[in-house]
């Protein structure tokens, strides 16, 4: 019983704290090993976004500066494994994400894993807030990576790691590498 409670407490502490998501700095080529993996996603909202939490293989949190609705891309080096977006906090309220596959993503070693554009258009209709959604904008993400991280994206294949199945990035970057 004690063991169970301590495990739950530890998990709770990890979930409530977590480390800051380590964003990748300036573009460069890197040596790839079986522990190297990148995640890329974007956050977009006409509301103020305060923070975002990611849980799974690792626990991460991100704080955001107020923006004017422009798209904020996040590229970070993380451990390969399974993750999910677990909480999104706007200036008005918290959006805890339900335990569905919709918010899960998978980060594969040796790849840049694009996991979606997280969008929040905050509106209140018939007593309910519209929740955030994740949109697969692979082409935009690929163009962003090729423009801002040409060395890294030439070095590592880009894949879709978000909900469902989508082979567009694999096909395109596979063709690139030929």
């Amino acid at each position: 019983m004690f063991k169970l409670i301590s495990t739950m407490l530890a998990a709770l502490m990890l979930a409530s704290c977590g480390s800051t998501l380590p964003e990748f700095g300036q573009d460069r080529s890197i040596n790839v090993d079986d522990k190297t993996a990148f995640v890329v996603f974007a956050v977009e909202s006409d509301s103020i976004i305060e923070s975002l939490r990611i849980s799974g293989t690792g626990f991460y949190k991100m704080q955001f500066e107020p923006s004017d609705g422009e798209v904020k891309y996040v590229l970070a080096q993380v451990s390969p494994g399974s993750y999910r977006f677990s909480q999104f906090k706007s200036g008005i309220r918290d959006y805890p994400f339900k335990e569905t596959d919709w918010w899960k993503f998978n980060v594969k070693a040796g790849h840049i894993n694009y996991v979606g554009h997280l969008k929040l258009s905050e509106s209140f209709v018939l007593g309910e807030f519209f929740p955030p959604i994740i949109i697969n904008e692979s082409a935009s993400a690929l163009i962003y990576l090729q423009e801002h991280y040409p060395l890294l994206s030439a070095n590592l294949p880009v894949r879709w790691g978000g909900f469902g199945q989508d082979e567009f990035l694999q096909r395109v970057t596979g063709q690139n590498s030929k």
Partner: protein
Amino acid sequence: MSLFKKLIFMVLLAASVIVPVQAETNQVQQQIFASASIATAALNPAGTLGLFYGYEKSKAQLFIFDSQTQTSKQIFSSKLGQKTRIQDAVWVDDKTIYFRLVDTCKSCNQFKQFFVFVDERLNSQLESFNTRGYLINPLRDKANQLMYAAWVRQNTKYQLEAYKVTVEDIIKSRFKRDNRIADHLTDVRRYWADDNNQLRFAQSHDKEELLTTYWLLDEDNDWQKLEQIDSRFYEFTPIGLLANGALAVLTNIKSDKVALYEYNWQERDLGKLIYQHADYDLISAEQNTKNKQIDWVGYYQNGEYVKHYFSQQLADKQALLERSFAPDNAYIVSSNNADDKHVLLITSSNNSGKYYLYNQTSQRAFLLGAKYETHQNFEFQPSQTLQIKHPDGHQVEAYLTLANPQTDKKVLLVNPHGGPIGIRDTQHFSRTTHYLSQIGYSILKVNFRGSEGFGRAHKNAGRGQFGIAIEEDIMAALKLVKQQYQFNKTCSMGGSYGGYSAAILVIDHPTEFDCAIARFGVFDLNLLLNDINFKQEENIQRIIGEVVGTDKALHQSRSPVNLANKVSVPILLTAGLKDQRATAEHTKRFEYMLKKHGKAVESYYMPDVWHGHRNRETMLEEIDVIEAFLQRVLNH
């Protein structure tokens, strides 16, 4: 003359030619796309007063008029610059009007509701309210009583409930349990009354099972369950209780075409067939309030809305109107309770419409005004119907609108509709079609397999036929047109499914087309199931699968993103960045692949646009882009 002066002279000369042409085109565009001067008109129950509403410089305006003197007075106007649209303006009784005002600003779609109290001298007083709901029936024969459907919170959920209330109750959002018309039904999406002004029907929806249930309110005020159907495949529209106690319904649950049947609602059994058209689905019907028989049924024939009358008297009345306004069509859009005064809309494929006040007793019609005052100086081209019979027996209907002979560029735009399942084209006056025709383009629209209105088999034959049978129908129509008319250039142009079709047509038939305009399109068919996380829900996957099919390998082989190397003509892609139906990602992927293969592609992304336009400004901006593209790539 120095070289510099020559250059200046040439630039000025070119400008003097280009600027007037451009200005003239812009003027034509402004006039054709101007908002309606009279969107619709209606008489009060006594027929003494009427209302009409329209727009001037984007300002919504509501007028009342005296039907004897024909004098009119403005009783409402929105603020200048406010982008609003009036909806559902009706007479609640002889002196009260109800209407909704929809705000169509770029990022919202909110509405307000109003009552206007008027007197014989055309004086008026306005009351606005924000109650969430809609008017079911004004109960025009009962003083200060209305049927209103309001969203009411029950536990944690909002439910739609039907009430019999006064105007004051609605304004003050006073919906008491005692005023509820019938017992509570859950998940109702719509209530409606029969033609005898009785709350009679409700429609509820089961989101899990994707089934729609129809309910009848019987004489004991109890809800009786009628049919439960999958509305993506079947139709079931209750009309009213007949004199023999059976319910008249429009349905196709036991036939290919939607037809008029008697329905035994106690036994839930479809009975006698009353009327069926051989080629077309019926879409509407009206019951006689006195003898409870069905007066008429409506359907689209050759793209025009027509009615079949069951009484000779009504058929004769309609024939008289048709003769009087030939070759245009005459539609009665409003009548007084005595049924001897009517508002008529006279329209056709090349007439955007005029409203008349018609006195049946004196057989005189007085012009209220044109639907679009700015259209009066144009001579629009009539559309013609083409019937394409396939060797396997199925028939496809298409509509051709030729270019204005004065400006004819000898260019045909093949314009597939969206959907592709359950949507259709008609010959109703279309401003976009006639604008394109006025500036020199001919337009072909095709009701390919999958289109609504031609029976269930025709509709279902389009499922999973993206880039296959649907485009066979379009090409068959194109072949027929080219046998009859000569064009120098042909381009494909469409939105949504039509955007996909525009792209796949030039991929599969490179020698038949000279350019493509693909708007709000889907270009990666597998992405349809994976573009937004909430589409992972099982039912959404099922709904999409039933339209596009489930063969992923086929989707891959029929997706323009994977066939970009086969595009050999210039292509314009347009998309709304807020579109969640065909996300802009489809367009970005296709553009990326086209560029990767060195193809001539132009793109235009609209930041505040969803799946199609909500306001005129963004629509006209897109039309400008399309027009400039056509001029550039076709060199005219």
